[in-house]
């Protein structure tokens, strides 16, 4: 009787809802992902290595990871500036710009892809003037970089914004009253408080850019070894029925994503442990 009673829960439906959750999660997410890893295990380490170390694969990974990191860094800096302007200053159009930050979240990637291409092509509104300066954006790695910046902006802004908003104004006043200059206050007091959020935003923007496909392929030019991103190479290998190659590249990218999620989770926990209880 007591043993049975101990397992009872006040609200009904735990067993049913948890069972459904786990089953549905398994069917849609876990089994398909496990299938990918199983497939990769069918490859011998040597095969796996040969695929990854081929020049085209290496270059594709380099383009994806390298440009994604560069774009995430730009987003970190520009995102911080945007957050600062949106949170700390009042100016006409502020709310509109605040809403606009989410456009890259909401705009389908294929639409973003064709739009950025049209904008930065040599005859485009921005591509024209840039071409006159000798800068070619569309159909070069710079184009990939631009697309990755586009899709990464909201990640930095939306992770840092709430933290800056919640930052207790008293800590700045305290720093000021202790004689710190404004610049010292920002560098020594505000920036460290934002650090976990900034790093999280950087990691999220990077993870998104690495895997990005739709907004990149139109503007990329897709020249093997130069402007070919890893997700595109997966698609190409699939269309050539070279499943092993596609799987191997996918596994590497997945593992990197999982490491990033893990790091972000740890970051969040660290950030939370630093918040004093109110």
């Amino acid at each position: 009787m007591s043993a049975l009673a101990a397992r009872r829960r006040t609200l009904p439906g735990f067993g049913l809802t948890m069972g459904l959750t786990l089953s549905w999660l398994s069917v849609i997410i876990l089994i398909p992902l496990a299938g990918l890893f199983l497939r990769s295990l069918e490859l011998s380490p040597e095969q796996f290595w040969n695929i990854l170390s081929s020049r085209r694969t290496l270059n594709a990974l380099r383009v994806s990871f390298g440009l994604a990191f560069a774009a995430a860094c730009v987003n970190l800096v520009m995102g911080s500036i945007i957050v600062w302007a949106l949170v700390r200053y009042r100016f006409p159009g502020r709310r509109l710009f605040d809403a606009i930050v989410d456009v890259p979240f909401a705009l389908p990637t294929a639409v973003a892809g064709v739009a950025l291409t049209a904008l930065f092509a040599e005859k485009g509104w921005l591509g024209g003037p840039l071409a006159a300066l000798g800068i070619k954006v569309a159909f070069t790695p710079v184009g990939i970089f631009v697309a990755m910046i586009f899709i990464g902006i909201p990640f930095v802004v939306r992770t840092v914004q709430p933290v800056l908003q919640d930052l207790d104004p008293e800590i700045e006043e305290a720093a000021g009253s202790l004689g710190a200059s404004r610049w010292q206050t920002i560098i020594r007091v505000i920036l460290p408080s934002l650090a976990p959020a900034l790093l999280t935003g950087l990691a999220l923007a990077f993870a998104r850019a690495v895997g990005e496909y739709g907004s990149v392929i139109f503007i990329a030019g897709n020249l093997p070894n130069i402007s070919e991103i890893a997700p595109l190479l997966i698609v190409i290998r699939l269309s050539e029925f070279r499943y092993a190659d596609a799987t191997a590249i996918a596994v590497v990218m997945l593992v990197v994503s999982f490491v990033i999620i893990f790091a972000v989770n740890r970051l969040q926990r660290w950030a939370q442990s630093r918040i004093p209880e109110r």
Partner: protein
Amino acid sequence: MTIEVKNLVKKFGSFKALDGVDLKVDNGELLALLGPSGSGKTTLLRIIAGLDWPDAGDVSFNGEDALAQGARERHVGFVFQHYALFRHMTVFENVAFGLRVQPRAVRKDEATIRTRVKELLDLVQLDWLADRYPSQLSGGQRQRIALARALAIEPRILLLDEPFGALDAKVRKELRRWLRSLHHEINVTSIFVTHDQEEALEVANRVVVMDKGRIEQIGSPDDVYESPATAFVHGFIGESIELPIQVEGGVIRLGDRPLRLAADGLAPGASKLFVRRHDMLVGPPGSGAFEGAIRHVRNFGPVQRAEVALSGGETIEIDAPRDKELRAGDTIGLEPRRYRIFAGA
């Protein structure tokens, strides 16, 4: 409805919220569960309501096993500490909820439900708020609506978790009196949880004092105040002076000083002596059981409170009538009018 709780144990991880609790509640009683936070009083209340489940032990209502029933079947009215009113429903619909969710076979018709809700709102004197939403009410009003909602299902037992905890002092006092008279009117077996001794002593017929998952004492408000059963109860209820003493060879010592107090029947060893502040009577030096020097005197409402350094090392605070002449620096004798000694350090 009588309630019987036997040997109840409840753990949250390694924390023992209830550690073998036995309790009998008589029909029509108004019982207070009193204790500091973490003493297990709310857990006990929630287990009786069926909102938590014990790891071991039994709960029965009128002799029948209550643990065999879920919260839904127990017909227990529960008033939550933060009221848990349904935000999206009007006051009227909140009170009507319990009637509307009854199985179709026993559900009353709309007219009956309306009449019943009106009656309940009259009972809690808030019929004029029927169309408001909970967010538009004051704390005291929410509290009374929560009570009306709990009463709507004609509960066999009424349980209230810190019913006045979230209210300001003035409203709290009014509601206390009101709750007592309401209980008198409806006469349902009721248990309420509180950490406020004044509240427990003023409202309840019987008080259960709890600490660390155990019941320290059960008794009438007078009992627990006048004859505390344990050191904890003495320290928790009323303002007490607590002195560490040694009982040795028929002598009581405070530090190295023998006290002029009888040690008859006391077990030797480290013990604690408790005296109410106002039970320490001030006399000339050399009189009484203790001697000490007054450090400060402050007026404190109807009494004056003096800080006294006892010879023997401890510093205590005593309350004396305002007309007694006390001055800082004076040496005085102190005689406890009443005191209790509990064995153990």
